[in-house]
């Protein structure tokens, strides 16, 4: 059997290999070399590569993003990490006005090979400003690339591809994925940007999911299988460039679409997938597509409220049953709810993040 790593270990290995291979690669971010090492993903790297190539930084998200861009223009390949997506909002100017447009606005004279890692929080009372999912913002911008890896294999391969890419790439890592375990080959390998992955085959229904929602979609597919419904689950992996063909091929086969994206509904990424399918495969749809997304409010801190905030497998199952016009088995769903931890990624977690 192939070696298994946790998600954060796969990130660390990708960074380690890229630092070793290319002297232009360097890491920076608040807490990158600190004793926690960005939830373990950068632990030990400063000891190996020194304080210039693995550097902590002032709490100056916007300025430091510009500094990363400037160093990239002068030949470096920076990897900037934010411990929460929310912190990166201070740097929207540099990401959107500068990094995304530099190549275009200078007629292709220069490009900006910058990777910006951002971690999506969830649960344990992190609340309105520590847990947002803003992938749609970034994926909206021409000039940026946006990836959301789900598995340890993919995060390593996508991170290496992102670091080797000559464009600015936003890598959105879900905190709840950090301790999942999966097979990860040793050494350098690449998962190409712009390729979705069918992670479970099925004929009856297509579930397109991003990041952590892929795991919920897989759980939902298992529950649906018990009802005799074969759901196909697609892990988007790369939001921009988007692998529209993989999604359309699946929907053409199943005629039913659910998009599971743990972000707000309005103008969200799920809406983009629905629009894509309606524009290009409308005649294959047997019913209107459905979205499993977040309610239209900020994330509350209290677990009592947050429990109803985040959609889970049972919500996907309920949408699938409604979509397919079947009644489902409520017993099964409630059993699944009680077995899923509601504000921690796994039962061993005792907080805080």
């Amino acid at each position, binding site marked *: 059997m192939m070696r298994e790593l946790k998600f954060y270990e796969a990130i660390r290995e990708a960074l380690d290999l890229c630092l070793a291979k290319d002297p*232009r690669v*360097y890491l920076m971010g608040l807490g990158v070399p600190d004793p926690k090492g960005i939830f373990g993903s950068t632990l030990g790297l400063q000891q190996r590569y020194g304080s*210039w*190539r693995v550097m902590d*930084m*002032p709490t*100056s998200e*916007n*300025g*430091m*993003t*510009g*500094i*990363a*861009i*400037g*160093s*990239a*223009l*002068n*030949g*470096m390949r920076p990897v900037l990490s934010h411990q929460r997506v929310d912190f990166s909002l201070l740097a929207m*100017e*540099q990401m959107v*006005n*500068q990094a995304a447009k*530099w*190549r*275009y*606005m*200078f*007629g*292709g*004279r*220069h*490009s900006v*090979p910058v990777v910006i890692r951002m971690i999506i929080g969830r649960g344990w009372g992190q609340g309105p400003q520590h847990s947002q999912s803003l992938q749609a913002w970034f994926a909206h911008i*021409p*000039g940026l*690339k946006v990836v959301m890896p789900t598995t340890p294999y993919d995060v390593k391969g996508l991170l290496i591809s992102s670091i080797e*890419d*000559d*464009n600015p790439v936003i890598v959105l890592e879900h905190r709840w994925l950090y301790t999942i375990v999966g097979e990860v080959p040793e050494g350098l390998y690449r998962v190409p940007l712009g390729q979705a992955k069918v992670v479970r085959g099925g004929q009856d229904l297509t579930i397109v999911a991003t990041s952590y929602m892929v795991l919920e979609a897989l759980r939902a597919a298992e529950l649906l299988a018990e009802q005799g419904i074969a759901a196909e689950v697609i892990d988007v992996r790369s939001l921009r460039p988007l692998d529209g063909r993989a999604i359309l091929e699946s929907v053409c086969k199943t005629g039913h679409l659910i998009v599971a994206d743990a972000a707000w509904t309005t103008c969200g990424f799920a809406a983009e997938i629905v629009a894509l399918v309606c524009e290009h495969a409308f005649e294959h749809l047997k019913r209107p597509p459905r979205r499993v997304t977040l309610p239209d409010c900020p994330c509350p801190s209290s677990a009592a409220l947050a429990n109803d905030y985040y959609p889970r497998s049972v919500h996907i199952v309920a949408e699938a049953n409604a979509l397919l016009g079947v009644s489902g088995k409520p017993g099964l769903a409630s059993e699944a709810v009680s077995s899923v931890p509601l504000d921690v990624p796994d039962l061993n977690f005792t907080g805080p993040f």
Partner: protein
Amino acid sequence: MTPEAQRMRWLYYNLLRIRMVEETIAQRYAQQEMRCPIHLCIGQEAIAVGVCAHLAREDYVLSGHRSHGHYLAKGGDLNAMVAELYGKATGCAGGRGGSMHLIDLSAGFLGATPIVAASIPIAVGAALGSVMQKEPRVTVIFFGDAAPEAGACHESLNFALLKRLPVVFVCENNLYSVYSPMSVRQPEGRPLASLAAGHGMATYRGDGNDVFSVSAIAQEAIRQVRDGGGPMFLEFMTYRWREHCGPYYDNDLGYRSEQEFQDWKQRCPVARCRERLLREGILTSQDHEEIVRTLEREIDAAFRFAKESLFPEAQELLEHVYAP
């Protein structure tokens, strides 16, 4: 001619060149062929010329929205700049950027972008890259008096000091941000250089309308920065003659007085330099006429090049969004 006299003539030549380019843009702007915002630096040329006089081609310069002078003083290609204003394929940014996005990598002009203060951290990052790659390069960033009101400026000063990066911050204080005077933006009696000094940075202040004074200050500052002394902040006082954006004078609007403009015009950086050169016998009026004719020919040729150049093809619209 002594090397010193030659150097002084070089300063004058470049001052006059920028002035004449900017005046030509102003004259021809009404033809509606340069269809992009322009921010002319007439009245402020001495800072660009005095600073860039001490830079090598490999050194980097970045700038903001009012960048024509910096681009030309650093050796940016004139034809490509004018063609960019005309939106032509031969423009320095292939017609994608216009006046606010000049670039000439072969001249070390790394780029100019018009979001106030946004190019400051990018310049600091370029300097970080130089240190990490052990290059002797110095990076100069030009910005106006409003940039130190933005967080990105202070974040950049802090980090440049933290890592002792080879950056020269050059603040051109022309007293106005668009129509807003200093008095509505910053506390009275606080020089901009003192903000950098508050960070712990070495600073100089000088008369931005005296190219010899700018040059002397810049020479010393750039020497110190190049020798590893860490970053430096220079503030030069100056005045923009024309409107913030566009080819005209706008003293009739009432946000500043005609008298104030006339006072500054008396201190014209080009005329002051010329008068000194004439007085000291470094330049004769015949020399001057010859320089003017040479520059007229060069500028005419640049505008002709721009007008005769082709526009980018419509099917190129989506090119250059991503690097391959």
